[in-house]
C-alpha cells in the first residue's frame, strides 16, 4: 500500500490514526475496534464494511501498538 496514502488516511469515525496490517490486508482503528479491509489494494473506509474486532483483539492490538511506540 502506498505510504503517502497511508499517512493521509484516518478512521472515518474518530479521525484517529490507523494501523496497517499487511498480512491481513486491513487497516485497524483500535479506538473504535474496526478493521477496514483492503480489497484489491483499495482501502474500503466504510463503517458498514468494516470487521468488528473482539474486545480481546482490541486490547491485544492496543497493547502491541503502545509497546511499539515505547520502543
Amino acid at each position, binding site marked *: 500500500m502506498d505510504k503517502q496514502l497511508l499517512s493521509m488516511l484516518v478512521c*472515518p469515525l474518530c*479521525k484517529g490514526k490507523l494501523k496497517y496490517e499487511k498480512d491481513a490486508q486491513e487497516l485497524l482503528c483500535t479506538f473504535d475496534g474496526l478493521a477496514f479491509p483492503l480489497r484489491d489494494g*483499495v482501502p474500503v473506509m466504510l463503517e458498514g464494511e468494516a470487521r468488528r474486532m473482539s474486545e480481546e483483539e482490541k486490547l491485544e492490538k492496543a497493547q502491541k501498538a503502545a509497546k511499539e511506540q515505547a520502543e
Partner: protein
Amino acid sequence: MSEEKTTHFGYKTVATEQKQAMVADVFHSVAAKYDLMNDLMSFGVHRLWKRITIDMSGVRPGDQVLDLAGGTGDLTKKFARIVGPQGKVVLADINSSMLNVGRDRLTDQGYVGNIEYVQANAECLPFEDNSFDVITIAFGLRNVTDKDAALRSMTRVLKPGGRLLVLEFSKPTNPLMSKAYDLYSFTALPFMGKLVTNDSESYKYLAESIRMHPDQETLKSMMENAGLVRCSFHNMTSGVVALHRGIKP
C-alpha cells in the same frame, strides 16, 4: 414509537438509512455503461462542463487533489496530468462498481503512479484535516444523503486556501429552457436508459433527483454554512448545470 427520519430518493420519500443502499443499487446497475450514457444524455457537453471545472480549480503541479464521487475517473485523468509525479490525485467513491470501472479504465490507459483509490463516504471522509489543495465533486452531491455533513467533511480535509468545486445539475435560468429540459429528462432520459442499460428506473431516479437538488443560491448558502468563504457559482448551459466554488479560509 419514535418517528422514523425520512429523506427523498428522487420523488419518493424513504427512510434516511435506506437512501444510501438505494443509490448504491442505481450505480451498481449503471456503472458499466456510465460513460456512454453521459455522452448520449448530454450530447457530449459533460466533457466541456468538466474541462471548465478543471480550469476553475486553479490546480497546479505538485498539488494534492481529491476527486470525490469520482466514479469512472474523467476528472482524475485530467488532474493526474496536471499535478504530475510530485502531486497526487485520490479518486474516492462510495460505490465499489464505479470505483472498479474507473480504476480499470485509468490503468488500461496508462494512468498509474500518482493516482490512489479509496472507497469512502463523503459524509465522513477518512482523511487527515488539511490534506487537499483541491476537492471536486462532480454530479455526486445530489446522491449524498446528508449534504450538509458532506460539505463540512470536505471543508475539514481541505488545506487552508484550498478550493472545493461542486459540479452539479441545477435550476435552468430561462423558462423556455426549463420546459424543454423537463420534457427531455422525463421522457427521453428513461427511454435512453432502457435502451442502453436496460434500466429505465435508474434514469427516472436521475431526472427526479435533479429536480429535488437545492438550487444555485441554496447550495451557495449551504457551502457558506459549512465554513467556506468567497463562495460563488457559474451557470452553464442556461443553468442546467452549475459550478459552485468555495475556499477554505
